[in-house]
């Protein structure tokens, strides 16, 4: 079957078997390997991407369900070589260790900030509760997002609004 969708701002048309998932399209057909597979059943969030602006598990979406959708992956969060403030703060606050959950974490927090620019501490924790991390204990991730919220609210940049 053929699937047409918008990937990271560009129209894509792919011929693919019906039993393939969104994550397979991204990783195997399009070579976008930033999206990771950790469990295959929607429990770990490593495969999180944005679908029409919402964080979703790309392992739970069949290729055909992507028809007409807008997908954003980790590869498109930094713009022209400049990291998104969330990415920058992940570095500054030590939110990255092994890095396998990181793309999904970045996308979950990015999605949160798109719809809720002033999330509370609990809202941030809830937004990443579908993203398992075994290295960091989440603390430095939460700190990085909180700092991003503070920065974005004190000096609004266009980056977060793109």
């Amino acid at each position, binding site marked *: 079957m053929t699937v047409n969708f918008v990937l990271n701002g560009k129209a894509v048309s792919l011929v693919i078997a019906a039993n393939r998932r969104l994550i397979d399209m991204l990783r195997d057909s399009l070579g976008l390997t930033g999206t990771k597979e950790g469990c*295959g059943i929607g*429990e770990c969030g*490593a495969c999180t991407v944005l679908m029409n602006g919402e964080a979703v598990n790309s392992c739970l979406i069949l290729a055909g369900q992507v028809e007409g959708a807008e997908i954003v992956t980790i590869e498109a969060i930094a713009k022209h070589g400049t990291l998104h403030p969330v990415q920058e703060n*992940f*570095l500054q606050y030590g939110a990255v260790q092994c890095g396998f959950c990181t793309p999904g974490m970045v996308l979950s927090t990015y999605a949160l900030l798109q719809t809720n620019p002033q999330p509370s501490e609990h809202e941030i924790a809830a937004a990443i509760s579908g993203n*398992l991390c075994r*290295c960091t204990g989440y603390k*430095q991730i939460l700190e990085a997002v909180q700092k991003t919220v503070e920065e974005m609210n004190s000096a609004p940049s266009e980056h977060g609004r793109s």
Partner: protein
Amino acid sequence: MSADSFTVVGKPVVRQDGREKVTGAARFADDLRFPGMLSAVMVRIPAAHALIRSVDYSAINNDPALAAICDASDVPAAKTVGIVRKDQPVFCDKKVVTPGDVIAMLLGESEEELLRLRDQVRIEYELLPVLTDYCNALAPNEPLIHPEFGSNLIVHYPLRKGNVEQGFAESDHLLEQTYTTQRVEHAYIEPECVIAIPREGRKEIQIIGSIQNPFTARRIVADVLGWPLTHVRIQQAELGGSFGGKDDIMCLLSARASIAALKTGRPVKIRYRREESILESYKRHPYTMHYKAGFMQTGKLKAMKIDIIADGGAYASMSPFTTWRTVVQATGPYEIEHVWTDVRAVYSNNPYTGAMRGFGSPQPIFAQESLMDEIAVQLGMTPDEIRRINGFRAGSITASGQELAQHDVNLVTVLDTAVGQTAFAERWQENEQHIKPTWTPSCSLDNKDFIEPDQLLQKGIGLATSFRGCSLGAEGTDAAAAYLSLRPDGSASLLCGLAENGQGLRTTYCIIAAEILGIPVDSIEYLDFDTAYIADSGPTVASRSTLMGGGAVKNAAEIVRTQLEGTLRKRWNLATDRSFVFSSGLVALVDDPAKYISFLDLCALAHSTGVNLSAIGWYRGPRVHWDESVGQGPAYFTYVYGCQVAEVTVNIGTGEVHLDHITAVHDPGTIINLLGAQGQVYGGVTQGAGYALWEEITAPNGKIKELNFDEYLIPTSLDLGTITPLFVSGKETYGPWGAKSLGEPTLELTAAAIANAVRNAVGKRFFNLPLNLEEILLQRKLRPEDPNANQ
């Protein structure tokens, strides 16, 4: 160099590999593909113990989707492997001893097609009696898992100090308890993946994978192929978490992939899905621990007798090493005159167990720290008092007869810091005195004691202390290498023989070299790990990478620095007693700071005069030894100390435990990267909390039930309150500037602290991890497979 004169050491430094990781550019093994690459699918049988009668591939042999089959007949040299005892077949051909065992591997271009073919392989097998109750493994009528060893005993470590019976006789009080801990999974988020690529007429094999210990994998693959080590080249992809877990399993998968790559002449990738990862990979050992303590009315411990049995599962793996750490540390950080300890690891048909962060220490710490609290309660003391009375101090003698010297023995310091920070004693006493509502959950339907709503949530506070031997100790040779090369423009390349596990050792090493050379951390490029280019430095285990690898990096940087100093002395015509300061990209005379040269110019000068600016640094741990017959000797050359305080809220109606706050005080020696050190604490405490409350791999009949993250519950972002890491930096003789260990110390005592806090909240003591809902309310586990579950 004194602590306050550091430029980068001890500061928060951003990870050297961070940018790739936040942008999705970092390449993990499954992100790589090569032309002509084949996929692999494992063939297993759903049995925990069975004789293989026949394997029939006739239904698939001629299928075009099948490129090749590999089984035991394809293994060129060593048919069985193992880090200590070679008891694990690469492919099973006679029998399976646990359901993760692999009989054959199918290769082809489409994983989907291979899965279809797998169903058509016909295997006849005969079920054998299954041994799952490991405490019974040494009983005479139990099945032998590996009959060739004559017994199910993998290893037995005795430790004898003083006269334990005399100690009990002299004691005012005796206390005896039995504790158990569960089997848990590492739960690295990246499942196993490895690629083997045949090179140069199949005389060399290149392996790229999520491999924790590339040199161990090289040795195992070379053994299996019957090749010299140098023909096996292991490169490490980014490693998506390991925690001790990507060792044996990755060695085995590397061997299988190599066999297949050489047989087909094509690159072969093995990647596991989560279910397969949990099914086949090893776990943390379940322990059953019997403790008997004799103590005086004053609180002084007099004697301790410990009998521990560890479930090694189907293969020996690391059991001989994990249980050795147990025997060294089983009495905890307390000076006890008379000790009698026996630790045994045994075979069973359960999933095999091996290395996992903590490595034989979280289990005895849960037991001994529960016991210490119970003694305190019995004597009317607070938990910190009893530990202050017995805790190690400078010059204390450990259970193995080692005198603690040549480092700050900071046990009491970490304890006092944690206690002071949390107002522990007052709060503990207040909770103890608070009268808890009595409620006995039962199936009887009437006259339930209902809890007044304002009594539903009960607060508790608890602590645990621990000491931990750094690095391998008497387990084995302890040395590491690092390669540093300065470029003519002042930039540098660095590589150490210890492999990054995601914890950030590359950054730590760059900091160490940058400090010595006085250059920016980001002017040092850390090279990709490849066994072809660096000396075997042992495994990234035992919280040894900062201590050992850091020592090697520091040594390499010092060699290069000495070369630069020589160059400068010559150029400036200086006497040999004139010394230099390397800082902020400048090299100046200590006694005449106005005389300086830029680091860049100095490198160019050295280069132009033919000075060698590359060095291989080396660091070897001091000698340690161990007398196996009595368990005596200086087990480790140094130790670290920690104290954690857990504050919890327990819902006594449901048994839910919420972790409000954990204060973690550790003495890791000198901290190299503050950001990394804090990350180790947060992560370790969180894993420890998972061990305390939620995580458990059950295996009725040897078969794991929790095969994915829907059933194997690790902590999420909503499951922990705040964590406060505090560091006490003691003086230390060894390691770079006295930096030692932190990774494992952060995890090992968390469950014990939580269990003690729960006891403080509800007034009941718990003896069996995890403290899940049922354990808290009923003081037992409930499982569907229990014999009297459906009365």
